[in-house]
């Protein structure tokens, strides 16, 4: 087992704030976020990159934090679900998921929000097909996906209208 002796000091920008933490060489980012940094919004589902519950952005790139070693994010920026809302103001994706009932048990929701935000950052006017393919790596066993997709497309509209006004 890893002992504290071989832990690596890692410096990274987490949700906009420079942070330093210790990580074992084989420790995954998802575990460090949850156990060391107390950012427990990121959920761990499958631990093999299949379910998307642990989705985060590393240097604005959507990834599964269960398939990233914590040591890899040295010097990089990480955005988690905790960094999506602007204080008490929800991100449009979050607001629309609430309005459309796009969540039930909520385990997949942080990953869905992060993934959908990444989609709308790169493409604020996705087709339904594009949204469904982009979110294909975020499994939800409750909603049947329709409500999530409707919420994301509705959030896209809000974002476009915000940019236009």
């Amino acid at each position: 087992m890893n002992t504290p002796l071989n832990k690596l000091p890692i410096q990274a920008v987490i949700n906009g704030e420079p942070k330093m933490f210790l990580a074992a060489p084989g420790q995954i980012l998802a575990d460090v976020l949850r156990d060391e940094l107390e950012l427990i919004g990121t959920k761990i589902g499958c631990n093999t990159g299949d379910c998307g519950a642990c989705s985060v952005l590393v240097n604005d790139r959507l990834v599964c934090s269960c398939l990233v070693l914590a040591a890899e994010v040295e010097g990089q920026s990480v955005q988690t679900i905790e960094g999506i809302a602007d204080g008490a103001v929800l991100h449009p994706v979050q607001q629309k998921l609430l309005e459309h009932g796009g969540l039930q048990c909520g385990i997949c929701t942080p990953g869905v929000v992060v993934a959908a935000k990444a989609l709308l950052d790169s493409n604020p006017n996705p087709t339904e097909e594009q949204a469904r393919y982009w979110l294909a790596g975020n499994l939800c066993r409750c909603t049947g996906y329709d409500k999530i997709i409707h919420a994301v497309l509705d959030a896209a509209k809000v974002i476009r209208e915000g940019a236009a006004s």
Partner: protein
Amino acid sequence: MAIQEFIAPKSLTEAQSVIARGGDAACLAGGTDLLVGIRLGMRDPNRVIDLKHIPELTALEVGTDQLFIGAAASAYDILHNSEIASLCPGLADALDLIGSTQIQGRCSAGGNLCNASPAADSIPALIANAAVCRILGNSGERMLPVEEFLVGPGQNALNDDELLVQLILPKPAPGTSDTYLRLTPRTEMDIAVAGTGISITLDTAGVCTAARVAIGAVAPTALLVEAAGQALIGSKLEDNAVAGAVAAARAASSPISDKRGTAEYRTHVVGVLVKRAIQRAQARINAGAKA
């Protein structure tokens, strides 16, 4: 995980000296196979070497005659390189079929190749594009065509001291296009039952002057089917020439039967895919000629 050491070399020289230390080391690019393998108990390295800080391993370059794809460059980066994606749309098709958005953000063409799954999507597309592996080892560099890099399921031709640095593709000649098609039960997030990557070159009269046909998921490794390419060369891709390529692809197949499909089904389907891939590449060339 019992990983005791994490090393991120910044140059090829540094990487070589780390690899030369031997022991149970694993090279890390996107980690989408390695970290899953560790999680599932199939791999247990004590050292991980992160290759993504070595410029040659992540760079994408379009030269005068060749394309250079760093072995650790992510599918996302390759797909968003408009030059590479437009020169090799079939390679882009293949990379865009791998896993989810999250997986594509990390997985690499070099990793897909080193992992050597018989069903890997990018490998038939690389073979169709006549990609060559640039390999660096203690005794220097060597070049190996992708189809010769594959040894068996999960096995590649790298020696312990060697590192896959780049994939080097000849720049497609005018009138060339490539395609990758696969069959999966679902439209995404699935593993190929059968796949094919093809590249064809047509002259201005529509005569095929070069063709490479590769097949995947129907043999222990992805295969180059030279006879299938030969069946197309000199033809205008008439029905009988295409039928010859289809027959050659089926003859080269030796699939297993498993939960994804029987051997008979896979052998049939790979032929259907070859036919459709030829038609699609031809349509792409014709569309390009009109544009």
